[in-house]
């Protein structure tokens, strides 16, 4: 679901609580800045109270005391000081709030990225890689509003009205009571309206998600719609869905508007009540504030000026409410990602005799949390130094999981994997990786040139070594035809290479790295016969003198291997 609010609406109370706690924990490193933002906001609130008091006194002095300008020099000067102070605090509030959000975002993003790296490529196949990138970018960004605006405002919505009451009560307790008694009615009525709004919004968010999805879906499928001559007919459906969306949204919005109208009504009503009460008191027709001196103009104006300020923080909080919804939805997704357990990787032993690699799996079981059945169940096999082993079996049989274990992206739940007789758990995984080359089903090319991509493992490799690797992997065969040769930019936005060419670049990487252990995950899947032949020629050359494990479906690939091991239901079944 790509709408954060839609996601929040679908959250249960327990999930919301969990998300709130997670946000609280995540916000800890930025607490200092958050407090500074609250301090700035609160100071500004106090300055507003002081400003109201000064203006009330000025008007009193002018209207009642008939004071001339010279006598008013001091309050006028003081007002300027307050204005300056408010300006500084307004800036500080914004800057400190943002700083808090930025602190949270950058540290969280780094933590999440590290976690994704530890989880390895298996995660990207289970979850769309685009969704993971969205988590790293958008969902982390979605926390900004919460930490920069909502959180400080939530504090201010409590503090500032309190400060207003503290200021008003000594001046006139009746006016203070009007504010105090109107105030609790506000959340009460808002909650009553809000409860209905929550029900309605669940409904509406579902329609919203559906409509967004529908529109995207139909745009994506335009070609298919055209093929069936249904594109024009879709216009009618889109119109219907838009109309339904509008009706439902308006139903929610009417309630939302009603709840802010309630807030506004009480704000307006208390201004009106205060004004009328103050007016009668000043006229002397009534005298309610028993125990306090008869009201004077300055007191009346002060109370009147403060009445709107009393409600302002609440109104602002309501305006930032969507920030909270977005953050809660993001928090749920982010915490779920961070909760996926990553392999521990605590080993420190260096790989002994790294030039010759032997591998032994004995009774290895791997079970993913939430997986229906274990990915591997009692897999045992050995690979001797210099041997090339093909792992075959239906998709999902556990071939990729076996390779993931050797890359340190997965952990055996029971059984052991040893490399040169050292259990994987004791090995320093970084050292093992130094001696491993890996080629995936569709190798990833990074932004940069073909040469940059070949140099991935050895950025300092010289030109001669680079060209040799490129020649061995048949990269030069096609690169020679490109105007820029090996310096041709590739990647998402660069010149597109064909699937076979990409695999050959990946092989060149492995040639250049010259590692004794070579792991390949379906290196020729989806290639046409010509391309597969070239990739196989390169693999034949690359495997010489190395220990190689290839997961594959292709009979042609099996033909270049010394031995074929079939995995079925997580177990080995030796074939040939």
């Amino acid at each position, binding site marked *: 679901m790509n709408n954060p609010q839609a996601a929040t609406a679908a959250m249960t109370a327990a999930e919301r609580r969990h998300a709130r706690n997670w946000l609280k924990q995540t916000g800890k490193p930025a607490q200092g800045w958050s407090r500074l933002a609250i301090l700035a906001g609160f100071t500004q609130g106090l300055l507003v109270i002081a400003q109201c008091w000064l203006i009330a006194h000025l008007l009193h002095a002018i209207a009642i005391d008939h004071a001339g300008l010279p006598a008013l020099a001091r309050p006028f000067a003081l007002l300027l000081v307050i204005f300056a102070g408010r300006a500084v605090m307004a800036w500080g509030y914004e800057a400190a709030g943002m700083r808090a959000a930025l602190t949270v975002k950058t540290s969280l993003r780094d933590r999440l990225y590290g976690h994704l790296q530890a989880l390895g490529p298996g995660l990207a196949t289970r979850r769309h890689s685009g969704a993971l990138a969205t988590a790293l970018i958008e969902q982390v960004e979605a926390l900004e509003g919460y930490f920069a605006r909502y959180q400080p405002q939530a504090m201010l919505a409590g503090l500032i009205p309190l400060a207003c009451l503290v200021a008003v009560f000594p001046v006139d307790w009746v006016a203070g009571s009007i504010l105090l008694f109107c105030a609790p009615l506000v959340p009460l009525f808002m909650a009553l309206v809000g409860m209905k709004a929550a029900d309605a919004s669940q409904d509406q968010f579902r329609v919203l998600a559906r409509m967004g999805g529908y529109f995207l879906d139909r745009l994506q499928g335009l070609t298919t719609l055209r093929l069936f001559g249904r594109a024009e007919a879709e216009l009618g459906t889109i119109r219907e869905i838009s109309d339904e969306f509008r009706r439902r949204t308006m139903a929610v919005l009417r309630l939302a508007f009603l709840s802010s109208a309630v807030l506004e009504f009480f704000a307006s009503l208390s201004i*009106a009540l205060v004004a009328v009460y103050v007016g009668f008191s000043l006229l002397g027709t009534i005298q309610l504030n028993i125990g306090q001196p008869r009201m004077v103009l300055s007191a009346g104006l002060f109370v009147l000026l403060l009445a709107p300020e009393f409600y302002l923080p609440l109104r602002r909080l309501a305006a930032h409410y969507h920030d909270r919804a977005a953050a809660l939805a993001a928090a749920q997704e982010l915490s779920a990602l961070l909760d996926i357990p990553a392999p521990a990787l605590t080993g420190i032993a260096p790989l002994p005799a790294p030039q010759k690699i032997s591998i032994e799996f004995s009774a290895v079981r791997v079970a993913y949390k939430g997986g229906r059945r274990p990915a591997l169940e009692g897999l045992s096999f050995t690979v001797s130094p210099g041997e090339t082993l093909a792992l075959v079996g239906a998709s999902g049989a556990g071939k990729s999981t076996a390779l993931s274990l050797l890359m340190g992206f997965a952990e055996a739940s029971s059984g052991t994997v040893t490399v040169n007789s050292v259990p994987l758990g004791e090995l320093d995984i970084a050292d093992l990786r130094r001696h491993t080359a890996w080629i995936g089903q569709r190798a990833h090319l990074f932004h940069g040139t073909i040469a940059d991509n070949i140099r991935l493992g050895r950025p300092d490799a010289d030109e001669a070594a680079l060209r040799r690797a490129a020649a061995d992997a048949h990269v030069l065969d096609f690169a020679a035809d490109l105007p820029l040769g090996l310096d041709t930019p590739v990647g998402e936005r660069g010149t597109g290479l064909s699937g076979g060419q990409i695999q050959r670049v990946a092989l060149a990487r492995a040639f250049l790295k010259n590692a004794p252990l070579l792991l390949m995950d379906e290196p020729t899947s989806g290639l046409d016969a010509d391309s597969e032949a070239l990739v196989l020629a390169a693999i034949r050359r690359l495997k010489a003198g190395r220990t190689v494990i290839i997961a594959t479906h292709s009979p042609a690939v099996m033909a270049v291997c010394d031995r074929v091991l079939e995995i079925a239901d997580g177990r080995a079944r030796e074939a040939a």
Partner: protein
Amino acid sequence: MMLKLLAKPGLLRDLGPFLKPLGRYKLWLAAGFLLSLATLAGSVGLLALSGWFITATAIAGAAAGAALTFDFFSPGASIRGFAILRTAARYGERVVTHEATFRLLADLRLWLFSKAIPLAPARLGGFRAGDLLSRLTADIDALDGLYLRVLAPTGIFAVATLIGCLLMALVSPVIALVAFIGLIACGIVLPPLFAMAGRKPGERMTRTMASLRESAVEGVQGVAELAAYGAANRQRAELAAASDTLARQQQRMAHLTGLGAALTGLAGNLALWAALFIGAAAVSAGTLAPAMLALLAFGLMALFEAAAPMPLAFQMLGKMRSAARRLTALANLTPATSAPAKPLPLPAGNRLVFSGVSFTHTGAARPALDSIDLVLEPGQRLALIGPSGAGKSTLGDLALRFRDPDAGAVTLGGTDLRQLDPDAVLTRFAVVSQRTQLFAATLRENLALARPDASDDELWQALADAQLEEWVRALPQGLDTVLGEGESGLSGGQARRLAVARALLKNAPILILDEPTTGLDADTEARLSAALDRLMAGRSVLHITHQLARLETMDEIVVLKDGHIAERGCHAELMAAGGHYARLKAA
């Protein structure tokens, strides 16, 4: 300045097309505007009248006896009236303007969709997958604020400033002038300055965001490579650096926003200060009644509410302009093929002929197809084979008239496709390719796409022929099972068999198979092939593939290489010739 900005030809050019549809909702928008004005009047009236009332009562109360003759009923009632007016008008205004905006948004969506139809697939292919579509939805949503957050607040601000200051001028021209200057500063001078100052860091932010996304996507997709080649820490540092740069720019923006808020607030406060200062002098000079000063001061404070949404309006204006520009750019794309002014009626025959057809993709160095001659007789089966990039799929696109050839002609039943309506041509074709577009709808709806009036019996027959009946019968919801977006929930083989079922329902005379079996394992492929056999019976077939299996039954096999026909003939002939086909078959 705002008016000048609005009058800029660029701005009008960008946003103009999106202003026109507003005309349809004139009444709605006018009502919203009046209600909005009433809200502001309520606010100003409430505060100004309260200020005046309190001051007047204080003066009356101080003067013995005056209190008894003071008419406090009408001001008291007016104050309550203003309070209610403010609340009610704001509620009404929000309901009305949002209603109008949603209607407008629906219009925009429809307009965009109808513009996009003829662009698929040739013109939309140039956009990166997903990027275009998500931008289109986001851009349309960005425009929803055009009236709500830009036009209406600006109009209200202008009218409120004029009326408010004119009314004030009746009491004190000097204070009215001060208020006017303050309002202009808050609403028109400062916001665009800050919007402009924020543009550069804003653009840099967008760029940094793009490189951050790049690092993130690469880090996620290339995680195994990064780990295996010791580049993981390098990539992580790169991501952290981009993240930091983004943070620095966001901090700079926050400083600007903070400064903007500070200065706008200050300008309003200074106007109030000046009004009080001038008022004090006027009161002591006896030219202004004290209660009137309170009225002016309080009214002025409330009037500044109208300036509050202006910074946002200017910010949104920039965003909307770029959104509008992107939408217009898409809407203005010329479709790759369009119907001639007077399309000829669709000919009766289905003989498909390519004569001397050449086609070069935009920006490509070599033609994808170079003087190709091919004939697909009704009922004939023709296989197009060759390595990826040999131009096989382009040939399919030309047959479907998704594109027109640069030279030569494609004719259907003897009529040049260019003289026909592209959508009419499509009625003769059914396509099964390696990617099946399924819609987020029920199975029934996905099938009915091919024949909206199909009965359930017909649907089940198609499913049976496509080897899907057993699977659908086992689904608890049967035909009413809702499919997810994309292909989720279905295996690749099932999705393709569903495409076969659709093609069966469509019952078109010419069938294009575009690598339908790519990437399937042997079992799945066998089931799909059985379904395809049913589909091919009695139809002309153009089978595009790079796999050489099961081509023995084809009437003709054409080997394409680099846009040329390398060899052609039936299976036996090609094997006998010992050329490219025979070599590949032997490999």
